[in-house]
């Protein structure tokens, strides 16, 4: 189609588009506000759950450490020896990265005689034992010093059968009856498991009483690692320290993964539901805006606006509302993440920069999907009808 050349105009392309965009939104502040509020809610939930999602592996691992040790180190089966040397245990600890270690304790078991009969005694590193056994209920207090050979902790049922209370003194006699040691019961332990029948003393004392100097039976560790990462650490220890067998305790490691999967799936489901609701709200609001602006759209078409221009205008308005709403939603979402982090994990959630673009992309996608039907409605406006007031 031949169109005559027009004299060049002085003006900035896009400035009228911006004027139209902002004034149209200001004119319909109420409706735009409703659409923005919907997106704020959606963006806040998405940002909060995404912050938690990105932080949850670490938070969950820390939380799941409350269930106890998740890593075992003992003598290699092929060696046929009882236990491992204390130096070997120290070498194992050196193989574990510090940032992955929550706590560790060697254990050396033996039978001793107490005043009222025999008992199982465990030599431990009390500081490490406390870190890998945070769920233990202790009456009295923990033995806090590593070289303390005057105090002991005793299991609930053993204490009852020996009629011992916190502060009582108990005499421990070795199997050969060559050594008597008087210990003060500093804490009574209640775990609901085998520990309730045992007595706990410092490793060095246990080694003397059992006549096993420099030996431990095995060690229990609590590591921040799950699944393949825990397997990799076991492989590394096995390769780096000869004569030991290291392995993750599957029950807890697998629980880590399963709980994580379930929580992440739940979060995704909640986010998806909120996004669908947001999309429907935005769709309803944009549809009302288009219906209200039908005469305006008809006029724009009569003035020569192509469908592309109408689509651009509505999508730009939607995107503008969305970007403003996401900015608010991100702030609220980070706050919500802190509330959830404190409520669920008792920890602050770290700000992850990736949350910003991800929330923006997800929210924009939801808003633009919501705009599809209203924009189609705008394209379908027949100017000849609306300009006649039909």
């Amino acid at each position, binding site marked *: *189609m*031949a*169109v*005559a050349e*027009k*004299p060049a*105009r*002085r*003006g*900035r*392309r896009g*400035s*009228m*588009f911006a*004027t*139209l965009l902002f*004034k*149209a939104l*200001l*004119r319909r502040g109420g409706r735009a506000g409703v659409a923005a509020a919907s997106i704020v809610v959606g963006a806040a939930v998405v940002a909060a759950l995404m912050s938690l999602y990105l932080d949850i592996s670490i938070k969950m691992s820390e939380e799941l450490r409350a269930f106890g040790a998740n890593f075992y180190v003992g003598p290699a089966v092929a060696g046929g020896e009882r236990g491992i040397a204390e130096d070997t245990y120290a070498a194992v600890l050196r193989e574990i990265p510090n940032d992955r270690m929550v706590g560790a304790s060697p254990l050396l078991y033996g039978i001793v005689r107490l005043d009222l009969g025999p008992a199982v005694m465990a030599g431990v590193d009390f500081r490490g034992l406390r870190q890998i056994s945070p769920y233990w209920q202790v009456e009295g207090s923990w033995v806090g010093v590593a070289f303390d050979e005057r105090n002991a902790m005793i299991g609930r049922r053993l204490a009852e059968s020996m009629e011992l209370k916190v502060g009582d003194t108990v005499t421990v006699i070795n199997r050969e009856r060559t050594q008597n040691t008087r210990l003060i019961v500093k804490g009574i332990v209640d775990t609901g498991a085998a520990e309730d029948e045992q007595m706990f003393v410092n490793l060095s004392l246990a080694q003397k009483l059992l006549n096993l100097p420099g030996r431990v039976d095995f060690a229990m560790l609590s590591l921040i690692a799950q699944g393949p990462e825990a397997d990799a650490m076991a492989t590394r220890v096995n390769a780096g320290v000869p004569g030991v067998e290291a392995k993750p305790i599957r029950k807890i490691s697998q629980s880590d993964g399963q709980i994580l999967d379930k929580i992440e799936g739940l979060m995704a489901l909640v986010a998806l539901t909120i996004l669908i609701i947001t999309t429907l709200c935005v769709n309803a609001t944009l549809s009302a805006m288009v219906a209200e602006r039908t*005469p*305006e759209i*008809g*006029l*724009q*078409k*009569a*003035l*020569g*606006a*192509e*469908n592309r*221009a109408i689509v651009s205008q509505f999508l730009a308005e939607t995107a503008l509302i969305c970007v403003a709403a996401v900015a608010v939603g991100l702030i609220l979402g980070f706050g919500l993440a802190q509330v959830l982090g404190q409520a669920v994990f008792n920890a602050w959630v770290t700000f992850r920069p990736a949350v910003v673009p991800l929330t923006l992309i997800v929210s924009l996608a939801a808003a633009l999907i919501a705009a599809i039907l209203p924009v189609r409605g705008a394209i379908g406006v027949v*100017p*000849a009808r609306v*300009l*006649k*007031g039909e």
Partner: protein
Amino acid sequence: MDALAEGMPMEGCATYGAPARDVIEIGGLYKRFGAVTALDGVDLTIRAGEFVAIMGPSGSGKTTLLNILSCLDTPSEGRYLLDGIETATLDGKAQAVVRREKIGLVFQQFHLIPYLSAVENVMLAQHYHSVADRDEAMAALERVGLGPRAQHLPSQLSGGEQQRACIARALINEPAIVLADEPTGNLDEKNEELVMALFQQLHAEGRTLVLVTHNPELGARTQRIIRLNHGRVEA
């Protein structure tokens, strides 16, 4: 209003001293809505620089003809040449191009965008045509006597002022033809006179104007009346 004669681009105007060309050529034009025939074989020609009124009773097909003339609708059958362009077979996108390049529309209800000022309403037509130029839009409003009211919103303008803003918008892209649909239908006598004087001045400058009206007094002030009845042009 004399300012209209100064510097107003004249692309859509007749050239004095030369034979006037046909701006609109319509032949065998039909428009059917189901079983109803709104336009029944219309033939007409409008030359550049003519000031024509299309008149007829309700249901005669005036609005249907105007919609086709303004490329807001397409005929069911027939030929419509606008400034040499066959528009009857154009798709929606090409029709939009023709509307912004060749046609200036003046409406009975003015149809100004309520949240844009008078000058921004004129700039909107420039925006869809090429690029919005505030100075040029201001000059157009000054030509219709609305310079001091350029920054006002439509709600702050009288009916006559709104219609003059609408006329400035229709003229801003120098269209081949200005189509006015009952342009004084919502105006009082004083503003009706003002708007008609403006149209007559535009005609005197050589612009091609088509006025759809049911008012015989307005029709009498045009150069030629085309009467429609039952979708046909009366002889």
